[in-house]
């Protein structure tokens, strides 16, 4: 039996720590609020954020509690093969994203005056539809992603503080709701940077102390490798070959790990609206290079720690309790990391890691809610007014934060809470992959064309977004068993959980939706006219 009382949390100390933590956050929120005077401040932090703050904000927005708790739990289940995702998050999520995407996206956003993800693409192709569609997609699907971040955070609070899951979920939502409604992106980014420093301390210590407690790097890996006979029979039959080995090539687990978790998230990061928006906030291009310094270190200590500590938790639990991590967590892999921390780490560390995970949750949720709110207020409502009654939108609308945006915050938050209550266990890692996958399939080819291909066209972009979105959604609803089975739509219509047999049941829809989206983009662009030269010159000025 796991010792739930071993964490040694003193409620009085905890209260003082949380009061201090909230006080610092409130002060930073106040600074951000005071510095927010225009809609540009609210939407893109006035475009004068320095590289270090941008990198930390990008990092904490990207790496949520779900990445640590959910993906760490998935790593405990699948093994070290998830380290490929760490590699991709650094190479694709930081190096490629900052240099090949960040630099031109920032220049384009400045040239066009874009303040949201949808506006950036819509203005590049002079398409209100694209802005509207991306706004709708963000507003409808992002609450599902936000809800799993809430689930991950609430699971940790449940385990660390032994409080009721429902109460934990509700408290988090209230704190974040107040926080986002009263502040703009400056507030979000200032507090993000503070949260990032706490996370860095917590995750850094977790990595070093885990290796240290298990006898060092090589001894820990060798000890874990020796446990391969403890892999449950069902998992071994599905391709699991031990925690220090890759899954059997082409097996169910191989497809899940590689196509859904590693590729889905690793590539999907490039098309995340809340991350793309961070590039629009920096003062100058060199800020993005400077950001790489902090970003590379930060992302390594977040994903690297989670995906190293996750598998090693099996060794610890076997040594202490004679059972692997998934068994100790009674099958809910989202509980593995919290249980590991509570049992292995010293009492004082629980305070630090709790603040780290709380920071990860608050920073990611606040960023997501901010993007949802801007998508609602700017991409949907304002865009709709520009389309239906352009005379009704005057200069004043550009410089005020309409109350409707705050309504958007509330709607998004309420939907997220409802979804969080309805989601099944062990959902965090796969639901993250779902959101990242659908974003990549819909937007990635268009984003690349937006910044690199002058010949790409409005028709090509629209066709690509719609085809990528449709194929990805079809794949999730009718082909990929992890989603199609719980959704039940395929069974309702066709009488079976998935339309096709293995391996289609385990290939992430991103694998076929992204090539379809890219092909459609290229072909349609070839056969249609590019925007006028004057517009393109304006877009690509100073590139």
């Amino acid at each position: 039996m796991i010792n739930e009382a071993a964490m040694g949390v003193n409620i009085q100390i905890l209260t003082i720590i949380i009061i201090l933590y909230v006080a610092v956050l409130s002060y930073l929120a106040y600074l951000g609020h005071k510095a927010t005077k225009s809609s540009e401040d609210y939407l893109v932090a006035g475009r004068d954020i320095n590289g270090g703050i941008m990198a930390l904000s990008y990092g904490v927005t990207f790496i949520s509690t779900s990445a640590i708790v959910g993906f760490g739990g998935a790593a405990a289940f699948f093994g070290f093969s998830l380290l490929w995702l760490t590699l991709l998050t650094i190479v694709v999520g930081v190096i490629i994203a900052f240099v090949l995407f960040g630099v031109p996206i920032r220049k384009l956003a400045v040239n066009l005056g874009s303040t949201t993800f949808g506006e950036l693409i819509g203005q590049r192709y002079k398409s209100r539809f694209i802005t509207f569609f991306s706004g709708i997609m963000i507003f409808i699907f992002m609450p599902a992603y936000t809800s799993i971040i809430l689930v991950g955070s609430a699971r940790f609070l449940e385990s660390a503080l032994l409080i009721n899951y429902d109460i934990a979920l509700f408290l988090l939502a209230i704190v974040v709701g107040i926080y986002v409604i009263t502040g703009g992106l400056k507030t979000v980014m200032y507090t993000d940077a503070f949260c990032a420093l706490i996370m860095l301390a917590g995750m850094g210590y977790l990595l070093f102390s885990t290796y240290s407690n298990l006898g060092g790097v090589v001894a820990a890996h060798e000890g874990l490798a020796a446990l391969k006979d403890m892999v449950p029979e069902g998992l071994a039959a599905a391709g699991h070959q031990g925690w220090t080995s890759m899954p059997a090539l082409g097996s169910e687990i191989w497809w899940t790990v590689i196509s859904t978790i590693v590729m889905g998230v690793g590539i999907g990061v490039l098309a995340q609206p809340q991350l793309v928006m961070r590039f629009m906030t920096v003062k100058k291009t060199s800020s993005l290079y400077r950001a790489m310094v902090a970003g590379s270190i930060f992302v390594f200590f977040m994903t690297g720690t989670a995906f190293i500590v996750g598998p090693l938790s099996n060794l610890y639990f076997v040594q202490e309790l004679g059972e692997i991590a998934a068994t100790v967590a009674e099958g809910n892999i989202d509980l593995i990391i919290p249980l590991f921390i509570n049992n292995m780490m010293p009492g004082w560390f629980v305070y630090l890691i709790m603040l780290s995970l709380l920071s990860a949750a608050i920073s990611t949720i606040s960023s997501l809610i901010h993007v949802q709110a801007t998508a609602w207020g700017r991409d949907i409502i304002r865009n709709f007014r520009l389309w239906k009654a352009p005379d009704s939108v005057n200069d004043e609308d550009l410089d005020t934060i309409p109350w409707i945006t705050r309504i958007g915050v509330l709607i998004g938050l309420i939907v997220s809470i409802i979804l969080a209550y309805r989601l099944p266990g062990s959902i965090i890692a796969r639901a993250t992959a779902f959101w990242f996958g659908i974003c990549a399939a819909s937007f990635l080819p268009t984003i690349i064309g937006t910044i690199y291909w002058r010949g790409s066209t409005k028709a090509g972009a629209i066709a690509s977004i719609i085809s990528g979105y449709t194929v990805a959604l079809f794949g999730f609803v009718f082909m990929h068993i992890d989603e199609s089975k719980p959704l039940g739509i395929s069974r309702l219509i066709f009488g079976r959980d998935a339309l096709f047999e293995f391996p289609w049941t385990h290939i992430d829809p991103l694998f076929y939706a992204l090539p379809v989206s890219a092909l459609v983009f290229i072909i349609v662009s070839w056969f249609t006219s590019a925007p006028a030269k004057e517009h393109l010159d304006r877009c690509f000025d100073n590139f």
Partner: protein
Amino acid sequence: MLMVGMEDGWIALVWWLSIITPLAGVIYGLLNWNSEGRIAKKESEESQGVSHND
């Protein structure tokens, strides 16, 4: 030594790459720390060269 106790060479490889790539990112970032300043300086020198030739 290079296998760092892993059973599978691919896992050992990715473990090492996960350590090395952040360092590469840091070095690249530092090398381009003042990229805009360098470009501006070069452009300024070039424009001075042009006016000198004129």
